[in-house]
């Protein structure tokens, strides 16, 4: 009988490059920047790493196929390496592959690294691309903001709220993330903004304006995983940080093609969240989770996720957001590092970047952003569009929490 992953895998070191428009860096530079930090943190060198997982999403825009680019960038000594891809949830997928290998007892020390070099396209936003030869015959070639903007129209209609009220709550989400990003030295966007800035920004995909959209960034993040026992021996003076839950849920066409989904929430987030809470023995997420890093690709995404993850009651996220329930200084800060919105969104790295912030907070190394009393944090990483996606939820905390 499977017993899950809770406390079977420890994170012994993490690293994250500075995110942003890294014009002067290639993917190999970004990978090395993240890895050097993690290796120094863990006290582990390349020779001790037995296997590696590379997460990169739009490989045609940067590194190309296979895990070879990671092996070359770090000069890994011909160890096993696997490339994974699950759209914008790729980073968590790399972590998941590595974590399960340790949990299975196949390896003692492994590396999960995510990278994306996006700023070589010549234009803003994510690259346009085919949806596959059969889908291209009928499926609209939607942009990400266009796909996520759908949530706003359906959410407002479902809950009977006016679009100006919803826009104001969405603006609060972005203002909060900019305030957090401003005190994060690795963040892509470090400017503070006001609600008025958000509301008067140029439209991108109605009702989303420029400040409702996250940054498109270059960056890399990584984690070195091992067993709790080895983690304790490597870092006897630090607490052991373990994975409590690592769940993935994938849409099967139900939301997109069956007349039941309301268009106003992320069905996979509910599913993955429910399983993660069961795995981590969490019964009251709003009280038990100390912080969360969710997939705030767009302001409306973060807002609806507050309900999907059980932080807000159905239909209440708008009011909770406006009440500051998820602001810094509250009992449940969301995106204390600035999130995708301001830390940035180098796709393959983002899931690991979320875990990185929890890791820093648990270690007490978050600097100006340091929260108090954090022993459990949640990440939620979303790949695809609201109606058809991959959703990963992880819960990370101190051993024993």
């Amino acid at each position, binding site marked *: 009988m499977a017993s899950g992953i809770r406390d079977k895998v420890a994170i012994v070191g993490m690293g994250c490059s500075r995110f942003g428009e890294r014009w002067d860096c290639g993917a190999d530079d970004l990978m090395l920047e993240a890895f050097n930090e993690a290796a120094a943190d863990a006290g582990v060198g390349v020779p001790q790493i037995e296997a590696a997982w590379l997460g990169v999403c739009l490989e045609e825009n940067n590194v190309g196929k296979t895990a070879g680019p990671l092996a070359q960038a770090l000069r890994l000594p011909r160890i096993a390496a696997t490339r994974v891809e699950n759209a914008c949830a790729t980073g968590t997928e790399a972590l998941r592959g590595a974590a399960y290998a340790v949990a299975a007892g196949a390896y003692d020390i492994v590396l999960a690294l995510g990278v994306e070099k996006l700023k070589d396209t010549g*234009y803003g936003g994510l690259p346009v691309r085919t949806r596959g030869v059969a889908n291209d015959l*009928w499926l609209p070639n*939607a942009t990400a903001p266009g796909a996520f903007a759908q*949530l706003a*129209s359906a959410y407002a209609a479902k809950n009977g709220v006016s679009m100006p009220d919803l826009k104001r709550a969405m603006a609060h989400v972005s203002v909060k993330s900019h305030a957090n990003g401003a005190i994060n030295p690795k963040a892509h966007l470090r400017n503070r903004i006001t609600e008025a800035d958000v509301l008067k920004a140029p439209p991108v*995909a*109605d009702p989303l304006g420029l400040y409702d959209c996250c940054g498109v960034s270059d960056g890399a993040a990584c984690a070195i995983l091992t067993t709790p026992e080895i983690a304790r021996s490597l870092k006897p003076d630090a607490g052991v940080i373990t994975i409590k839950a690592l769940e993935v849920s994938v849409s099967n*066409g139900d939301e997109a093609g069956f*007349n039941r989904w309301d268009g106003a929430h992320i069905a996979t987030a509910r599913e993955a969240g429910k399983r993660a809470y069961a795995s981590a023995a969490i019964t009251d997420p709003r009280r038990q989770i100390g912080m969360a890093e969710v997939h705030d690709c767009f302001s409306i995404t973060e807002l609806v996720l507050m309900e999907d993850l059980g932080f807000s009651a159905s239909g209440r996220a708008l009011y909770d957001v406006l009440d500051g329930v998820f602001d810094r200084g509250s009992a449940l800060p969301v995106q204390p590092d600035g999130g995708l919105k301001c830390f940035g969104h180098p796709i393959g790295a983002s899931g690991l970047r979320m875990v990185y912030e929890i890791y820093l907070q648990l270690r007490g190394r978050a600097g100006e952003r340091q929260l108090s009393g954090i022993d459990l944090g949640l990440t939620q990483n979303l790949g695809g569009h609201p109606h058809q996606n991959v959703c990963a939820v992880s819960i990370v905390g101190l051993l024993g929490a």
Partner: protein
Amino acid sequence: MNSPKPGYGILASARYVPRLRLSRGEILAQHRWMAPALRTLAKGCRSVASWDEDSVTMAVEAGRLLQRAVPDASIKDLTLASTTLPFAERLNAGIVAAALGLAPTVAVRDVASSARAALGELAAALKYPDGQAGGRLLLAAERRIPRPASSQEMIYGDGAAGVVVGTGSPIATIVAARGAHADLVDHFRETGREHEYGWEERWVRDAGYLGIAADTIRQCLADSGADARDITHFSMPAPLPRVNEAVAKRVGIAPDAVVSTEHETTGDFGCAQPLAMLDAALRGAAPGALLLVATFGSGCDVLLLRRTEQPCSGSIPGAGKVESSYMKYLSFTGQVDLEWGMRSEMDNKTALTAAWRDHARAARFEGGRCDRCGSVQFPRARLCVNPDCRAQDSQTAVSLSDKPARVLSHTSDFLAYTPNPPFQFGHVDFEEGGRVLMEFTDTDHDELRVGLPLRMVYRVKDFDRKRGFRRYFWKATPVREG
């Protein structure tokens, strides 16, 4: 001449006009500096196809109107007439037939090359009944692109029209028909060229219209024994201003019998224009009325019809929406190459193997209805989408193209590339089941809202400019009155 069999004739007629109507004042405003004489033509609006409409899609819309008008007419052949067919090789009528859901056994063909393309076909179909059951569908559509600042840019419009001919309860029957071919080249357009080249209008009027056309009309009247003064509806396109009135006068048809060319609201639809004007005439004619339709172009075709007591079914085109941007028209017609940004560079190559494998999906908007749980779903799949069912190979084909639907969610996306920004799309729920993420078309910026009633139209989805291909799919458009 052949006597038509009892009950053989035109069973239905229809015309389709694109929603956009370009203000001629705007056309004039752009050209006044070099072509002030255009002022005499600059009244009202002309219809323009949207970026995603062509002769195939407009013919499909006319065909759908006719299918609704005579749902019982079992169509046995389809003729598509146009001088602006999108494909020189690939049966254009076959694209239309598939979108209309016509059986593979239906005979389909394209006819082209002159303003007479459609009327000549109609005359032949009426003159020579084949004695077989089943309706004959004739569709004509035109999307010509005259040179900027030409008279034709003012006079022409984009649109389609069609008829169903067969045995049943006709709205009109043939009295006589006459044709004459003549290689009098009033204008020409080489294959592959966008713009036409024409000769002096006074000569075309005198030698062509008042000569060849008037003679052919007289011969048709003589064949029938009818007198020109008996004609109550004279439908003749006027690609030269008021040339139809001049012909009427020359042959003795009363001025008040001249059917409007709809110059001020739509413009001239080329080979579809005689059918469009006939449609208007049929709807206005009393039982027993004599209708004359004539078209000049590389000769002349003339058709004399008698209106029956059978009412005309179906609706007439709505007023459309006035478009005031001439630059948008130039861009829609590919006459100006605007800076669309790198997002427009995406390669829209179509995998023709996949296109054939999923042909019914795109052509007919074909989904499936699960025989076990009744769920309608798109695309049709091996396993039912209903998570409580999951039946395998349980689905019967069902087309969503005529099913009413509503907006579940929507956006107007200014980031995505589209020839007509913003890119509007959203989840669409069909009232009998089925949900599809779809593009909206012919939609105003502020028009979309959750719950808005929608209907489906067949449009160009993407152009592959690199290879000269285009793919079609269905889009959702708001249900509007009129």
